């Protein structure tokens, strides 16, 4: 990752739809060479932000600054658009051959046919679809179409590549293949990229930084580690997969260790909060281990609770186990563990998690 100063800045961006603000961002900056993901649930405004940053959406107020100069006229807007590329969820290919599609951005820029064909062929090669060059773009599969769309974007060697939910319409194996190819291409070409996605795993795989969008605002922006493990509020915590969110108040605070009262129970965590402070304890289900309730077995974890299983439900490759420990606790266990431990709904088991597995946030009023 190179650091050469801000490449694109957005200031006081305000977008309205039907008179209602749908995007309100005071400051947004992306550095050269950086890959940033905008994550958030449907309707949070991540696509709106992406389209705004790519100058495709009319601003109600605010400005975009690219490479130090403001995009403020039709001319500068066109110049800017000729330095970026956008890949949408839908491949949006033209009704012509795959090769012509990939060359279309270059054709628009007035490049000679011979040159643009050469570049387009190179791009097809890099995305592993050179054999489709002469095929009609209407006849290729969904994955091939999206590869064509990505090749078309790379053909113009964009300074910034924008990706709007680029993999959402693809099946998992196809998605996997395209993500790894895109990831490689982004590193090789050192292209700055901004991707909107609702899938945090995609974001984690591709990006250096993540911005969580909540109701048209940036709730948190930081490294993947920061956002995933230190969410700033309840919304971000829930969105990044901290399924257990418990409200409590700080009972003791000493040497970076705190004891939090949650209902009638006490949870030990790490952090510096004054006694009496209302806080939110966020716990990832994969950090909660379950065992059969035998008192002689001692866990190294600081937090051990006995809880009744209220529900067991499949969750992807795992099973999600809901517990009532005096507070609601969620744990993910593998199918193998579930089979060997023979858990049943209604059974009482022991749940353990480390003090460091509890992320504590000051409870906002």
């Amino acid at each position: 990752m190179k650091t050469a100063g801000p490449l694109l800045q957005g200031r006081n961006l305000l977008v309205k739809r039907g008179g209602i603000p749908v995007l309100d961002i005071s400051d947004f900056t992306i550095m050269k060479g950086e890959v940033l993901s905008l994550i958030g649930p449907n309707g949070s405004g991540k696509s709106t932000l992406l389209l705004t940053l790519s100058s495709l959406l009319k601003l109600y107020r605010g400005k975009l600054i690219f490479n130090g100069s403001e995009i403020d006229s039709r001319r500068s807007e066109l110049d800017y658009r000729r330095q970026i590329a956008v890949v949408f969820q839908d491949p949006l290919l033209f009704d012509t051959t795959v090769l012509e599609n990939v060359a279309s951005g270059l054709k628009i820029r007035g490049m000679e046919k011979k040159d643009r064909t050469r570049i387009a062929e190179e791009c097809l090669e890099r995305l592993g679809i050179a054999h489709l060059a002469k095929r009609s773009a209407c006849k290729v599969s969904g994955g091939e179409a999206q590869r064509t769309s990505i090749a078309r974007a790379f053909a113009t060697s964009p300074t910034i590549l924008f990706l709007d939910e680029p993999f959402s319409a693809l099946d998992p194996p196809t998605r996997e293949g395209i993500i790894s190819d895109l990831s490689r291409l982004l590193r090789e070409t050192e292209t700055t990229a901004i991707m909107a996605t609702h899938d945090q795993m995609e974001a984690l795989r591709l990006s250096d930084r993540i911005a969580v969008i909540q109701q048209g605002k940036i709730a948190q922006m930081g490294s993947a580690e920061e956002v995933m493990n230190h969410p700033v509020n309840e919304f971000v915590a829930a969105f990044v997969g901290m399924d257990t969110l418990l409200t409590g108040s700080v009972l003791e605070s000493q040497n970076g260790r705190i004891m939090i009262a949650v209902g009638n129970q006490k949870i030990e965590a790490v952090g510096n909060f004054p006694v009496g402070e209302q806080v939110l304890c966020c716990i990832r289900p994969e950090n909660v281990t379950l065992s059969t309730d035998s008192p002689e077995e001692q866990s190294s974890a600081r937090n051990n609770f006995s809880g009744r299983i209220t529900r067991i439900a499949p969750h992807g490759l795992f099973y999600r186990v809901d517990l009532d420990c005096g507070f609601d606790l969620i744990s993910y266990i593998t199918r193998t563990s579930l089979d060997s431990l023979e858990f049943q709904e209604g059974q009482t088991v022991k749940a353990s998690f480390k003090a460091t597995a509890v992320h504590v946030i000051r409870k906002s009023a």
Partner: protein
Amino acid sequence: MDLILEGIWKAITLIVTLDPEVLGITLLSLKVSGTATLISLFFGIFSGTVVALTRFPGRKIVVSLINTGMGLPPVVVGLFVTIFLWRNGPLGFLEILYTPTAIIVAQSVIATPIVTGITLAAMQNLPPKLRLQILALGATRMQMLGLLIREARLPLLAAVMAGFGGVISEVGASIMVGGNIMGYSRVLTTATVMETGRGNFDTAIALSIILLLLAYLINYVLTRIQQRERPR
């Protein structure tokens, strides 16, 4: 039965021997309706695209007017074009009433809403984000229009078919503004009306066969292009 068979036989003779009167009428029909279709394509594709791509107050009313216009009765058009071109009408100074030019004007008025309506529908059928994609590729506004029209080229062929089909078979306006003057403003449909009225069924049948053949040929060619082009 004899009447029909004899009529058809005579009609075939007229066509095969390239009867000068029948040939003249056919060529004029083609020229007049072809020109009118071209004019309507020019205005119709432009206005259809503009209405499809823009949002303005009263747009719904405009769209419903266009859709109504697609079924404009030729006699009504004929009436108004006649009034406009009448000696002391607003466009009377042009002195084109009862000329082929007047027929072209009337037929253009009939075909333009048809082309506009179909263009509008074709443009609205394109994926809404396609415009953004084209702009993101660095296109100017004109380049975007060109690319969108290119993308909608197949449904636009339907506009050509419907426009031409509508005017070549239209009779009301042609007779009113053209006057059905022999060797001058007599087209296939107006001649058919007249010959039928006179009881000259053979000539009427000949003209009808030509009309049908023309309509079929043109649609056949356009359909071929359409079928070849759409691979999906």
